[in-house]
């Protein structure tokens, strides 16, 4: 049985000031196996973030349904942890308190909370920064905290919406390795949205390519590169072949978007 089942999910936004309704997402079907790392790749505005937000329960689909472990998703919940592109750490909480937020909402006792928080601080390499305010951290450190915060809640699935999109290239590469390393060791079902082709291939066991708006699934590409993956993989011939194929796919869609905008 699949872990996550997306069935006929579409999204139409009401027209602004009596205008035509805007269709952001055509009906999408997707089945995600347990412990799969799936990246959703698409040009900007293709509805990939909308799809992720629907899985998170932050938005309702216009049609279709999302099932996690056979249960319908109706609202956000702690079984679906999320990392956003914008920095969403609670600025009034320290790094440790941020990571422990979900556990506190569950009402877990403080001692247990502290133990779990300490282990995740360790996991994302933030030892020594437990008592810092988010404002005192770099972008990469903030996103590492956000990942730890989502994971500390032990969700069934981890949703990431271009989490490294605002980071510089070097930091982005390190963050990819960090997240992949965690996944390789701990195994978790992951849905990762990105517009970066290299990132999509490097992280994924399966890349879902989405079309230009209104988005639909254009292709579903398995990535059979061996684990553990090292950054040098990005320069290997197998990687390059995949990259060439996906670049072509995305390029067509990006051009469609550009034409739609100029029309």
């Amino acid at each position, binding site marked *: 049985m699949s872990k996550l089942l997306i069935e006929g999910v579409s999204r139409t936004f009401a027209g602004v000031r009596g205008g035509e309704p805007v269709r952001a997402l055509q009906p999408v079907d997707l089945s995600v196996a347990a412990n799969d790392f799936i990246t959703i790749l698409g040009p900007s505005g293709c509805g990939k973030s909308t799809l992720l937000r629907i899985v998170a*329960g*932050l938005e309702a689909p216009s049609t279709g349904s999302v099932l996690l472990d056979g249960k319908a998703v109706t609202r*956000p919940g702690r079984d679906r942890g999320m990392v*956003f592109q914008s920095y969403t750490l609670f600025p009034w909480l320290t790094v440790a308190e941020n990571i422990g*937020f979900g556990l506190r909402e569950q009402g877990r006792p403080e001692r247990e909370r502290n133990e779990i928080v300490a282990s995740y601080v360790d996991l994302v390499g933030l030892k020594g920064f437990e008592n810092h305010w988010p404002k005192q951290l770099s972008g990469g450190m903030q996103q590492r905290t956000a990942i730890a915060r989502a994971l500390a809640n032990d969700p069934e699935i981890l*949703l990431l919406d271009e989490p490294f999109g605002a980071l510089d290239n070097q930091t982005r590469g390190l963050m990819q390795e960090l997240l992949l390393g965690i996944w390789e060791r701990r195994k978790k079902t992951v849905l990762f949205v990105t517009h970066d082709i290299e990132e999509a291939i490097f992280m994924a066991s399966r890349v879902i390519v989405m079309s230009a708006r209104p988005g639909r699934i254009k292709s579903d590409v398995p990535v059979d590169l061996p684990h553990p993956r090292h950054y040098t993989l990005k320069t290997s011939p197998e990687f390059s072949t995949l990259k060439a194929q996906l670049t072509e796919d995305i390029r067509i869609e990006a051009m469609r978007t550009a034409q739609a905008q100029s029309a």
Partner: protein
Amino acid sequence: MLRPLHSVAPGTRTVLGISFFVLFVAFWAWITLGGHVNRIFLADPLSMLKDGWRLLTEDRFWLDILITIWRVFGGFVLASIVAVPIGIAMGAWKPVEAFLEPFVSFARYLPASAFIPLLILWAGIGELEKLLVIFVGSVFQIILIVAVKVGSTRRDLVEAAYTLGATDNGIVKRVIMPANAPEIAETLRLVLGWAWTYVIVAELIGSSSGIGYMIINSQSRLATGQIIFGIMVIGLIGLLSDFAFKALNRWLYPWSLA
């Protein structure tokens, strides 16, 4: 030289800030001591200080100062206790906002000073009336500003909290309230400044104590030195309470400045 938005060194800032005070007092001294205005209408700085000293040592003016401070803080604290929860409720729950916002917006424009005759009829000319003037003048302002601040809570933080399993109740208590606490405190600091205006108006009418009473009393005796001293005292206390409030906010919310 002068470049737009270019910062100024801290030392220079202090010197510049003080020098305007010096210029101001110098100009005042020049027009009064130099005989450019009639002494009856404007006292010079020296006689202002002399009058002030006499007020404090002979007329027990410090009692008036204390009672005015008590009125300001009493009315302000009452208004805050009522207004902050209502403002948070309005900002967090849109039906509450829809219910109260039109009335509060209307009430905000009712001048507190115009209520004084009514309040005297209702509450007499005692302390309660003074507190009520400040309460009426502050409460609607605080409600509205707090409601607006709370209503503009960062949505991404709320969404993040939901995905971490927070309940609606948890969102209000552990996201909306802490996220807006520094801004609410800042609002209160602002409104406290306005409360000083209301208290003097309240003391000008039907009062037998307080800084405002001393001022209106001095008017009939043409004691402009005393009036100016009273005004200066208000300015000074306002400045001090503002500093104290700022320091308190910095201490309570280190994360917002870190």
